[in-house]
């Protein structure tokens, strides 16, 4: 072991990667690291982190791309030992606008002059609500398969649902939206209002939750396939069976 500064530098790339692991594709609700979107990340001795991001297609929606680059910038900036951050989105039609906009902390409206009317908070919230619906299916499906009735689910609290990674993921998305997320709060809530879902509305709510999950999963499947074709990323593309597992 040498001095403190050296240790910190040596650990920084791992810490940067961990920080990037907290950055999600808002549309797919998965970590950019798991999706294979991080093409590279290095930290210089001077404490400058350079992160390269890549997406499945040249024409991926620019608003989601902007959010990922912005979130990566914020996450990496918070890593101790990192003094400067550069996040570079590669091979994208709007790379120039996004990269320079993020570097200048200019916001979405300024980065896409004349093309956007608002920042992306509402878009992010809209997709968090989808993540809550998809997460609801992930948590409820095993319960229904185990013989619980929809009526019983309407009575359950979040804390009474069996502990699992899926439950905590659901809890965290609800918390991000400002929805009730405590152990004593209902397992099933409206993703807009946070109100409990009553027994009568529940079958349709669960159907919609299922459809949302199928849609997001199918999208993620297509995205992984396109990324694999574009960059030869077989190592990060889980198989169909594993994804469904």
């Amino acid at each position, binding site marked *: 072991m040498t001095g403190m500064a050296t240790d910190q530098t040596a650990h920084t790339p791992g810490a940067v990667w961990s920080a990037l692991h907290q950055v999600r594709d808002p549309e797919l609700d998965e970590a950019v690291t798991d999706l294979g979107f991080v093409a590279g990340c290095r930290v210089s001795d001077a404490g400058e982190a350079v992160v390269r991001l890549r997406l499945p297609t040249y024409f991926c929606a620019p608003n989601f791309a902007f959010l990922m680059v912005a979130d990566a910038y914020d996450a990496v900036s918070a890593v101790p030992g990192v003094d400067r951050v550069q996040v570079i989105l590669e091979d994208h039609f709007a790379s120039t606008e996004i990269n320079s906009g993020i570097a200048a902390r200019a916001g979405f409206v300024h980065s896409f002059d004349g*093309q956007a*009317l608002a920042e992306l908070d509402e878009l992010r919230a809209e997709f968090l609500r989808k993540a809550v*619906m998809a997460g609801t299916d992930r948590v409820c499906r095993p319960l229904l398969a185990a013989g619980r009735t929809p009526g019983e689910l309407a009575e359950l609290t979040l804390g009474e649902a069996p502990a699992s990674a899926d439950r905590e993921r659901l809890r965290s998305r609800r918390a991000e939206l400002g929805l009730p997320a405590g152990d004593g709060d209902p397992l099933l809530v409206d993703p807009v209002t946070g109100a409990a879902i009553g027994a009568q509305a529940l079958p349709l709510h669960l159907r919609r939750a299922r*459809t*949302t999950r199928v849609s997001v*999963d199918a999208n993620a499947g*297509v995205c992984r396939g396109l990324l*694999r074709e574009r960059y030869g990323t077989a190592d990060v593309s889980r198989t*169909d*069976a594993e994804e469904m597992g």
Partner: protein
Amino acid sequence: MYEKDGEKYFVVDGHTHFWDASPANWVPGQEQYAKGWIECFHAYQSLGPPETHWSLEQFQKYPEEMMMRHLFDEGHVDVAIFQPTYLKQWYRDGFNTTETNAALAERHPGKFVVNTRWDPREGDEGLAQLAADVERWGCKGVKLYTAEWRGDSRGWSLKSPEAARYLEKCQELGITNIHVHKGPTIWPLDKDAFDVSDVDFAATNFPELNFIVEHVGLPRIEDFCFMATQEPNVYAGLAVVIGGLMHARPRFFAKVMGELMFWLGEDKLIFGADYAIWEPRWQVEGFVDWNMPTDPEYSDYGQLSTQAKKKILGLNAARLYGLPVPPELDLPVPAGPEGAEPLAAPASI
């Protein structure tokens, strides 16, 4: 026509193209977009079986003879519907235009339906062009691409008053089928470009027009399903669903089909191979052979009957376009909602 196990299927490919994305057709200064577009399409082809993959060079521009062979000699297709996509900002003569498609169609009578397109940003000139296209080629359908770039504009919405003018014109001209294709950009860019609420809006305001949402609204299948279940004149175009998922992601394919059958049903689903992204042969054969898996995971999805497959592969589109179906390829009762429940209607009156 495709025959398997004694069953005969009338095949209408609801989504086909004859494009030119070769470098010679790229607009100077816009090369990166023209190149990016076709490379993106080419990546989608990789989701099909390996033996159906083409080189990028072949994919950029393919001969007429090859298309005819892939669709009609090998692909079991009886009639294919051309869906133009202009993209003239990037491709000098257009990517896949009504004119190019129609010229090919005229050389092969009876094989193609020629759809045209419009863009509400083209104003009165565009309305006149639409009328001229209909007069010249007898178009019954249009393909709309809301993400098309035009000057500084990155797209448009079916909610705009300008779009309403064009939809009114469609009614006046006898166009009945509006195919809508969503892409990654619109105005404003801070909104979700794949949002289908503008289709909902237009379908409600124009109940006499049919709205076929291509690629089932991918990547917003859920929003599309929740909307389509409320609109009697909204259909799902299956291009990309079969091509992009059936081989590459069979389990997701099963679930997406289960969802579409649940929310829309067999009368609302329209097959499209999306040539030249994917050849129709493996899609038609695979879809006829396909069954919903029997694992408990799929237990709340219904099986697809042979009748449902016949409707999806051709009879539904034939009904929308008034295509004659040989009697031996039709269902014992007429295809469609009326035919599907021959006993229910009198009982409920």
